[in-house]
């Protein structure tokens, strides 16, 4: 992206002045180097979002923003239902409530000697279903499916997957209110029937990591992290159910846009007024999709605990936190000094509540919310914390990951899956995957430098760095 099109607010914030149909400005948070590397499509998409009805404040792009669907990935936008505001299926994305949860294990990296590491990799790979066409042990039909869609991780715990204490460490305390299983089609439910407790594919993974560096030892301690600790992170979403909800509502919103008086410069921006039957149906279905993702990560947590127990009977996996990065949530935000109920879309962006926020569990009241940033197989992941400035910067939002630097096609021409697995093994990182081609497409080198992204997030005041995590074992979806 050419910086000449932007007004530089400071070294890490850039503004696009409202012009043409834009109702609000667009604000991009990134270093100059990240802005220069950013796709020009991000500029186009963020200005389109700024033109949608009822948008409040600004259309935001996070430091990891890249070309998405209608909305940029790494996009944040809030809408006022009282001012004709809209909800957009594209602004949430196909993988509703895709997110990351991280668990402490009570183990240290020293305890994971090469033999133990190999046993753990095998145990996780055989216990957690991953990859294309994999199915879970749990098959949901009818009433059980609806109960899961209404109850989320809370439902999963009631079924014996995990512990009640886990729920405190999940956004929405593990259950998204306002979910409407009746608004989810039979097709979406059928697509999910055999997919509960599965990782999926693409960039989804279960990773065992070591705490490699601390930036704030006190906050790390409050998060249960110390240097050399072993943690496990799970990155996945709402599986086939979310994908089908996204697919179906995108089409309905495209077709209904003219009758709602909405002009779409790009069909992928498809949206419906919050105050419409279609908007309400989507919100109900999308919230059910959030619960599906929360239940899915809860079940996978249970499976990970079983796998760890086989190899390390002393391991004690405790949930640090669970964040979602593809959502639309009703939240109260200060706009012009007044609290207003807004519907905040975060597409490839993580909520980052600052210290003192009433929605935070007691353990994080003074530190701010843990913000979990996924990396790629060979690089790093990060734990950040929401800050006092998160709210005014971008409605308490931060980045979600590195973002791709290279297409999948280009990655498969650059790397070979088997060679990559061997190369990472030589560095002590064990990869287990059903597909070598999948591994090549997800090569660490195909991603941007996640360190530069989190540095920009910190410099911009979106969230601050707490710890860096280095991969030890990665089960690739």
């Amino acid at each position, binding site marked *: 992206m050419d910086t000449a099109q932007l007004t530089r607010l400071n070294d890490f914030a850039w503004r696009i002045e409202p012009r043409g149909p834009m109702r609000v400005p667009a604000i991009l948070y990134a270093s100059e180097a990240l802005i220069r590397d950013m*796709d020009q*499509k991000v500029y186009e998409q963020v200005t389109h979002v700024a033109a949608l009805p009822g948008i409040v404040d600004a259309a935001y792009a996070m430091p990891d923003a*890249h*070309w*998405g*669907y*209608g909305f940029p*990935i790494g996009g944040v936008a809030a809408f006022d239902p009282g001012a004709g505001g809209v909800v957009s299926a*594209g602004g949430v*994305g*196909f*993988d509703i409530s895709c997110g990351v949860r991280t668990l402490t294990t009570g183990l240290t990296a020293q305890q994971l000697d090469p033999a133990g590491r190999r046993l753990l990799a095998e145990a996780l790979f055989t216990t957690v279903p991953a*990859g*294309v*066409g*994999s*199915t879970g042990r749990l098959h949901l039909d009818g009433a059980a499916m609806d109960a899961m869609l209404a109850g989320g991780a809370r439902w999963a715990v009631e079924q014996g997957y995990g512990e009640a204490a886990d729920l405190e460490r999940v956004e929405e305390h593990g259950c998204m209110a306002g979910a409407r299983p009746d608004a989810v089609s039979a*097709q979406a439910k*059928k*697509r999910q*029937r055999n997919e509960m407790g599965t990782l*999926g*594919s*693409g960039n989804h993974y279960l990773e065992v990591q070591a705490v490699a560096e601390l930036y704030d030892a006190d906050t790390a301690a409050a998060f249960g992290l110390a240097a050399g600790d072993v943690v496990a992170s799970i990155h996945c979403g709402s599986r*086939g159910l979310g*994908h*089908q909800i*996204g*697919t179906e509502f*995108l*089409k309905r919103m*495209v*077709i209904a846009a003219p009758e709602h008086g909405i002009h779409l410069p*790009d*069909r*992928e921006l*498809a949206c419906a007024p919050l105050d419409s039957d279609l908007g309400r149906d989507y919100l109900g279905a999308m919230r059910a999709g959030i619960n599906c993702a929360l239940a899915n990560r809860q079940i996978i947590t249970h499976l990970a605990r079983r796998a760890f127990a086989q190899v390390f009977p002393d391991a004690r996996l405790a949930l640090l936190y669970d964040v979602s990065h593809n959502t639309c949530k009703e939240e109260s935000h200060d706009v012009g000094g007044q609290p207003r109920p807004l519907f905040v879309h975060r597409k490839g962006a993580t909520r980052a509540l600052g210290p003192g926020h009433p929605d935070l569990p007691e353990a994080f009241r003074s530190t701010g919310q843990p913000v979990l940033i996924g990396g790629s197989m060979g690089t790093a992941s990060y734990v950040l914390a929401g800050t006092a400035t998160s709210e005014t910067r971008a409605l308490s939002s931060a980045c979600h990951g590195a*973002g*791709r630097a290279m*297409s*999948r*096609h*280009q990655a*498969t021409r650059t790397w070979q899956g088997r060679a990559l697995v061997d190369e990472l093994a030589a560095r002590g990182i064990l990869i287990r995957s*059903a*597909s*070598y*081609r*999948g591994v090549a*497409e997800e090569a660490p080198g195909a991603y941007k430098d996640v360190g530069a992204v989190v540095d920009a997030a910190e410099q911009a005041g979106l969230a601050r760095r707490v710890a860096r995590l280095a991969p030890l074992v990665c089960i690739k979806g």
Partner: protein
Amino acid sequence: MAPPPFRSAARWEHFAHGADVGLRGIGPRLSEAFEQAALALTAVVTDPAGVDPARPVAIACEAPDPELLLVDWLNALIYEMATRGMVFSRFRVALDGHRLTATAWGEPVEPRRHQPAVEVKGATYTALAVARQPDGLWHAQCVVDV
């Protein structure tokens, strides 16, 4: 004897989209461009040459315009792949106005043999275009989310 006209012109290709994959079906007739787009969809997951077209699955969909119909067609295939656990390698498409009827032939996915790289979440309206090119060939394209 004249060669079968234009048959060899039908083909598919992928194009780059940041995080995902763009696919394009090309053919002398719109229905062939749709068939080729379906092959390009399979190629996102696995090499179509390794998929035995053993079992037929019937598909029908309807949409207000050719672009939405392309997305519906691809999403119908994605749905069948997900719910039947299959991959497809042969397609026959018939178009009648806004209606599409088709048969897709394939087999159950076998991870060891097919080495499926990724599952497709959905076909999107990004870079969506269905149009006849100056050379007379139809192009049917969009980005799929993986």
